[in-house]
């Protein structure tokens, strides 16, 4: 029997609490729970400042994941779900957050979250998630002006990258770096469908292409598709990328090169944009509820 093989697509789950902050001093405690198609994120905010967060894979039951991801974010802080003044659910599984006071679409949340993470100069937000890719144009307060969602198929998304990482046997966190380990870019593979792209990549591997080269071809196909989408809503500076795929340097650097626009550097984990946006909406909603505005 061979050893149990490693699962290369499995990205690590993690949580973080901002040290030296006492939540008892905060007036408004809100949470944003972003149940994505692949990853689930929870952000806890004190008076509109990020305090704790957690990121984990979405399981089969969205309700359970929503409870798990939130309690993990609260773990060790002494906070309980009852202490949260307002909770907003967002993402693909937003209707499945049992303790949410309200749901808001991930499009509005990503724009708001990107505004918090990158500052008020953001105009174009590209969210590359697990199962879809969204191009969002927003104004100086983080309100959505125009959006476009590619929900037709998984080509050009994080799930496609997971499939590909498994195929070539490179851990997903290192995939982007590996794809850049080349002197010359190969032609891209087909970008209309993940299954076709995977089949084509497999054929290239069998032809004897090194995996770096195949990875580059796959990344290029994804980037072509993403840029197609972006040109439809129009690109205006400053441009940022959010969602899990924003952590893939192979995608980000190729978008930058093909568009000629450098995305802003994130001061926080860009995967959290949706959850942060939801928590900020929760704060605004709670203030309205108690009559602060």
């Amino acid at each position: 029997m061979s050893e149990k093989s490693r699962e290369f697509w499995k990205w690590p789950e993690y949580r973080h609490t901002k040290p030296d902050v006492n939540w008892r001093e905060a007036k408004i405690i809100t949470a944003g729970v972003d149940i994505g198609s692949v990853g689930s994120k929870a952000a806890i905010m004190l008076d509109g400042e990020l305090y704790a967060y957690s990121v984990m894979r979405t399981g089969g039951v969205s309700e359970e994941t929503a409870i798990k991801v939130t309690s993990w974010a609260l773990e060790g802080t002494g906070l309980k779900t009852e202490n949260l003044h307002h909770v907003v659910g967002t993402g693909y599984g937003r209707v499945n957050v049992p303790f949410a006071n309200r749901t808001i679409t991930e499009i509005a949340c990503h724009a708001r979250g990107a505004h918090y993470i990158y500052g008020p100069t953001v105009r174009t937000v590209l969210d590359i998630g697990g199962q879809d890719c969204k191009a969002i144009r927003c104004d100086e307060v983080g309100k959505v002006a125009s959006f476009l969602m590619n929900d037709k198929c998984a080509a050009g998304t994080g799930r496609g990258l997971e499939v590909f990482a498994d195929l070539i046997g490179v851990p997903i966190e290192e995939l982007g770096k590996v794809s850049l380990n080349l002197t010359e870019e190969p032609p891209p593979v087909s970008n209309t469908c993940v299954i076709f792209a995977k089949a084509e990549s497999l054929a290239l591997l069998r032809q004897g292409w090194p995996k770096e080269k195949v990875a580059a071809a796959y990344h290029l196909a994804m980037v072509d598709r993403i840029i197609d989408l972006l040109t439809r809503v129009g690109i205006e500076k400053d441009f940022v990328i959010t969602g899990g795929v924003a952590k893939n340097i192979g995608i980000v650097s190729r978008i930058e090169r093909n568009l000629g626009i450098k995305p802003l550097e994130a001061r926080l984990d860009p995967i959290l944009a949706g959850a942060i946006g939801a928590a900020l909406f929760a704060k605004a909603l709670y203030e309205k509820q108690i009559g602060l505005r």
Partner: protein
Amino acid sequence: MQAHYGYKNGSGDYFIIVDTDKCNGCGKCVEACPYGVLELVENEFDVEGGLMTVVTEEHRKKIKYSCAPCKPVSGERKLPCVLACETKAITHSW
């Protein structure tokens, strides 16, 4: 907000664009559409709430086919949903 529903593929752009700031949620376009492509939902973009028109989840991935019967064949022809909209909130990419 300009909400684009649809997709782009090798054969062209297929988008229905709804201006959510103009849409008043009257639902006339929903009645006018002969193929049930549009529906009214709670506006989740705005903290204020209210109703707005969207393209149904089912039709978003196939509007090339769903909307084909209403497409102009020869010369100018207004689409039923566009004609029904009093606030001129609906436009198309074709």
